[in-house]
């Protein structure tokens, strides 16, 4: 819907062609700011391929044609080696933490998508007593700040309570429900005309079949948006993961990165940047292929991670 409005009005807004001078000024500003946005990434990649000497001597491009060094691809295996090995599986700790992150992220994406689609369907399509009160409850949970519940949630993970401390349960279960997901998917469910349900009903479909075979395929972009945002949030999650895990081989990759920065990687900037690059790479790949869903998601709900 939003897209159609934009494309209808746009010709009117920009009917006035820009004067060449203005146009060049505009491009200059945009290019400078985009460079500003990208420089830290470029610096990370360049630094991850230097040796320590070139980093300390502030060589921005130590390779030919400006210098005689060679790209230090070996920084990557060296950094992975420094992080150590997982005593349980014998694999490098970095990959263990990457697997942990992948596993936790997968659980949360599947869980959040399921619980959100189900709840959204109930709120959008069904009538039941207490509907508006429960919907307000869901929205209210969005307003409870995370820091307010952080301490009690952590205590709940301890031995005398749920006893989930230092386990995958602590990293996943508390995040399987998402008010944002319910809200966003419900918005999209509501846009589907009611007549479609009546037609499906005549054809003999019940609610569950209608949800799975009609509603979900029709709202795939919204569901994908929810999944993608949860991917980014979980992959980048740090605060909670550090608080409720103790063993290195239970840690998420962001916690591993931080402890590497505090330890071995503190002085070896080139190795620290190699690890950072490996942590960031998967998100960037996913983002490049799916970026339109992000735009759609934040303009529909205006959420901020």
């Amino acid at each position, binding site marked *: 819907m939003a897209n159609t409005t934009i494309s209808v009005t746009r010709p009117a807004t920009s009917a006035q062609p*820009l004067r060449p001078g203005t146009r060049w000024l505009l491009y200059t500003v945009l290019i400078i700011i985009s460079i500003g946005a990208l420089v*830290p990434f470029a610096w990370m990649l360049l630094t991850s391929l230097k040796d320590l000497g070139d980093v300390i001597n502030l060589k921005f491009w130590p390779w030919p044609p400006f210098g005689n060094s060679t790209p230090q691809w070996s920084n990557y295996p060296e950094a992975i080696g420094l992080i150590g090995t997982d005593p349980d599986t014998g694999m490098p700790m970095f990959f263990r933490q990457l697997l942990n992150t992948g596993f936790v992220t997968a659980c949360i994406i599947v869980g959040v998508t399921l619980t959100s689609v189900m709840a959204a369907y109930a709120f959008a399509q069904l009538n*039941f007593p207490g509907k508006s009160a429960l919907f307000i409850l869901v929205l209210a949970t969005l307003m409870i700040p995370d820091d307010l*519940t952080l301490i009690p949630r*952590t205590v709940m993970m301890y031995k005398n309570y749920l006893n989930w401390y230092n386990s995958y349960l602590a990293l996943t279960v508390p995040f399987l429900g998402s*008010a944002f997901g319910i809200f966003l998917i419900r918005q999209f469910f509501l846009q589907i005309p009611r007549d479609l349900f009546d037609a499906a009903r005549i054809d003999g479909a019940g609610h569950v079949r209608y949800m799975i075979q009609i509603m979900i395929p029709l709202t795939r972009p919204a569901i994908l948006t929810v999944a993608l945002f949860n991917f*980014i949030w979980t992959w980048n999650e*740090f605060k909670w993961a550090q608080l409720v895990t103790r063993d290195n081989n239970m840690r998420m990759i962001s916690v591993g990165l931080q402890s590497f920065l505090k330890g071995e990687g503190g002085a070896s*900037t080139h190795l620290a940047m190699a690890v950072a690059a490996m942590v960031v790479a998967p998100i*960037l790949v996913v983002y490049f292929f799916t970026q339109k869903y992000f735009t759609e998601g934040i303009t529909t709900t205006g959420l901020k991670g």
Partner: protein
Amino acid sequence: MAVTKVQQQPVRSNTARSQAFKEALLAYGLLSPALLLFLAFTVFPVGFGLVISLYNWRTGPNDFIGLDNYTRALKPDSEMWPALGATISYAILSVPVQLLIALVLAYLLFQKIRGKSFFRVALFLPYVTSTVASAAIWARLYSPDIGIINQSLSLFGIQPLQWLLEDKGIFTLLANALSIKLPPGFTGPSLALVSIVIYTTWVFVGYDMTIFLAGLGNIPGELYEAARIDGADGWALFRYITVPLLSPTTFFLSLITIIGTFKAFNHIWVMTQGDNGTTTASILIYRQMYEFQRAGYASALAFLLFTVILIVTIIQNRTAGRQVNY
């Protein structure tokens, strides 16, 4: 509507009633996973946190100490006041800088130009990147010795700065540089905190810009047409059409940005761990729990800080809400 409903009620057959019952049952079934999770991990913890805050709670409850945690946090020399100050400075610095840059960028990108999607993707990239990783990068860009920020500034003859390692206020630094005297106490937020604000701007500008772009798309083009016919130039169009009609978006974004700064944690933890005047509310709470296992005291701090922050947000809401033209 109501009348028809009343008339229909007696006619409703048993099958219709059992249909409604089935529908309600299905609804509760579909809702229950999400709702149980919210109850267990969002609603219950609020009450449980209140209980914890009344105990000398370390890894478990030691003694019931009533409001002692609260009185300790409210003492004039408690660490809560500087944390509150840092949080509010952080929010006050972030909102105008972030929103102004984002608005200008959105306006530029809304013009008829090439490469729109390249600019959008490039500017949004920092938002999706792991904050631990990007904060680690920035901590090195800010490094007084090997950082490219000081290196670039030296090209313009500017003396190297300590950035994240600087606990002096920016007003003090500015006054020293210009060798003027400041009234005592007028130090300003620390340069370390300002460095974090700059980083935060880098992260969120693309996000804010995306929302501004959506807001711009909703302004009817006819308004611009009409104003042009009346002889309005570019600046007048921006000032008298774009800015007022975008005010709901601006208001919404400022609210979200404030909430975002209150929640800010990962990057501060990675860049300074709360040193040099950057201990914000959420860093303070976390440190009490993570480093000292003071669950009771940390809980009390969380309740106090969020009461204050809630009040600040409501005031902001009231005053800024009046400026919104729909």
